[in-house]
C-alpha cells in the first residue's frame, strides 16, 4: 500500500479525530487535577462521536454527544465540583497508584489486541446514513425484547439509587428535603 492511497480526506479526518480522542484520553489518565481529567473526557467522548459520524452512523454519533457529552459528563463534573472544596482539588487518577492500574491496563490492552486481530473486518458498501429509521425498526421490532429488558435494568438502577440516597439521608438524622418542605408549608 503506497502513501497516496492512504491520504484521502476520509483518512485525514480519521487521524485527526483519533489524535483528539487519544490525546484527551491521555489527559484523562494523567491530568494533575481530577477536574481537568473530567474536562479532558469532553475531547475523548467528542472524538468518538466524530468517529461514529465519519463511519456514517449519524444517529449513534449524535446520541453519543447528546447522552455522554451533554448528560453523563455534566453529571460527572457536577459530582466533582460538589465533592471538593473550591480550588483545593488534589485528587487525580495517578494517585490510585501503578500497582492497581497496570494489571488492569495490560489486561484491557490484551483484550483489545485479541479483538482487533481475530475479527474478520468485512467491508460493506459505504454511505449508510441516514440510519434513524432503520435503527428504530430494529429496536422496536426485531430486538424489542432485549431493548425492553435493557430499559428495565436502567429503571432498576434508577430506583436503587433513590433507595440508597433516601436511606443515607435518613441515617444521617436529617429529613429528606421534600418532607421538610411539606412540613414547612402544610
Amino acid at each position, binding site marked *: 500500500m503506497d502513501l497516496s492511497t492512504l491520504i484521502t480526506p476520509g483518512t485525514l479526518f480519521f487521524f485527526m479525530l483519533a489524535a483528539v480522542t487519544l490525546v484527551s484520553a491521555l489527559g484523562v489518565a494523567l491530568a494533575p487535577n481530577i477536574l481537568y481529567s473530567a474536562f479532558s473526557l469532553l475531547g475523548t467522548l467528542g472524538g468518538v462521536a466524530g468517529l461514529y459520524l465519519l463511519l456514517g452512523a449519524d444517529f449513534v454519533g449524535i446520541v453519543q454527544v447528546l447522552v455522554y457529552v451533554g448528560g453523563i459528563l455534566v453529571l460527572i463534573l*457536577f459530582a466533582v465540583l460538589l465533592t471538593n472544596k473550591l480550588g483545593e482539588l488534589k485528587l487525580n487518577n495517578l494517585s490510585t497508584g501503578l500497582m492497581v492500574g497496570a494489571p488492569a491496563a495490560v489486561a484491557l490492552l490484551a483484550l483489545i489486541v485479541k479483538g482487533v486481530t481475530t475479527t474478520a473486518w468485512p467491508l460493506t458498501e459505504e454511505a449508510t446514513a441516514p440510519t434513524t429509521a432503520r435503527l428504530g425498526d430494529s429496536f422496536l421490532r426485531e430486538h424489542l425484547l432485549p431493548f425492553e429488558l435493557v430499559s428495565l435494568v436502567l429503571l432498576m438502577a434508577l430506583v436503587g439509587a433513590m433507595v440508597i440516597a433516601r436511606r443515607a439521608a435518613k441515617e444521617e438524622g436529617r429529613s429528606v428535603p421534600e418532607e421538610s418542605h411539606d412540613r414547612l408549608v402544610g
Partner: protein
Amino acid sequence: MGWLAILIPLVVFVVLGFVATLLFGWLIPALGGDLHSWYAALLKAAFILLGFVMPLAGVLTWMERRQSAMMQDRLGPNRANVGPVRAFGLMHFVADALKMLFKEDFVPANANKLLFALGPVMAIAPVLITFAVVPWGSGVCAGHLTDRLTDGQLAQCLDTGGGRFQVVHLEIGLLFYFAIASLAVYGATLAGWASYNKWSLLGGLRASSQMMSYEVTMGLAILGAFLVYGSLEPATIVQAQGDSILHWGVVTQPLGFVLFFTAAIAETKRTPFDIPEGESEVIGYFVEYSGMRFGMFYLAEFMEVIFTSAIVATVFFGGWQIPGLHADGFVAGQMPHWLVCTLQFVAWAVKVFVLCWFQLMIRWTMPRFRPDQLMRLGWKQLLPASLANILITAGVVLALMPGAK
C-alpha cells in the same frame, strides 16, 4: 407612533427576504456557483447569523429594556441620538456594544485563566451552531425567479438543485439541535467554576442542574410532534404542516407546544427560571466577567431567545408557511417564484419576532421560582405531562393512521 414599531421590522424583513432570494436564486448561480457546495452553506450561515440573528439579538436587548420600562411605568432608554435622529433610542444597543468592547477585561487573581476564557465561548458557540438546522424559507429555485412554479416543481428543484433556505439539511435535524444545545451547559459550569468565586460556583451548579432537568422535558415534549409529522428534519416538519392552520403543530400538539415552550424558556435561564442568576441572591455564574466576555453571555442569552422562537415557530407554527399560500400564490399561477420566496421568509421572520416579544413579556410578567419549586415543576409536573402527551399522541396516530408502519 406605535404603528412604526410594526412597520419598521416588517420592512426590514421584506428587504432581508428579497436579498436572500436574489443572493441564492440569482447572484450565486449567475456567478457560476454551486448551491450544494460548502461555500453556499457558509454564505447561508453568514446571511442568517449576521443578517438576522445578531442584529435581532442586539435590538432585543434594547426592546427588553423598553418593555420592562413600559411594564414598570418608566420611560426606559429612549435617547442615544445619532445627530438629530432619535429613533426611540434604538441606538442604545450600539452604545451598549461599544461600552462592552472598550471596558477593561478583568480576570480575577485566582481564576483559572484557560477555563475562564473558555466559558463565554462555550456558552455562545452552541447557539450559533444550532441555527444551522433552522429552515428560514422553503428555498429558492435558481434560474426560475420570475416563473410560476407549482409545489411539485419547487420540491423537485430543491431536491436536485439545492437552494434550500437552510444551512444544512440533516436527516437527524432536531436531534442534532438537542445534542449541540446540551453543550451549552458547559459554558455556565466552566464560567462558574473558573471564576474562583462562591457565588459564581453556586450559579454554575444551579445552571447545570436546571438545564439538565429541563432538557429531558424539552426532548420528550417534542417527540409528539415527531410522531405526528413522521420526521426529525425541521424543513420536512414544516412541509408536513402544510398551508392549513389546522395541521400546524400548535393545533395537533397543543400540550406538546406548552410543555416545549416552557422547558425551552427554562433553558434560556431567564425569569421566571433565572435561579442561576437571581440578582438578589447569587448574581450568577458570570459575576466575575466584565467587558465583552460578559457581553458574550449576554448575547448568547438573547440568541437563545431567538433560537427558541425559531424552533417553536418551525415545529408548532408552520415555520415559513402562510395559510393558503402555495409555491405559486394563493391562487394557482398568481405569483412569481421570487415573491413567494420573499413572503415565506417574511412569514418566518414575523413568527420568530412575535415569539421573541412574547418571551420578553413573560420575562417581565412572572416572578422568580424558588429552586425547589423549579425542580418540582420540571420533574413532577412537566415530565409526567410530556410522557402522557407521547402516549396519547402515539395512540391517536396509531388509530388515525393504520397504515403507519
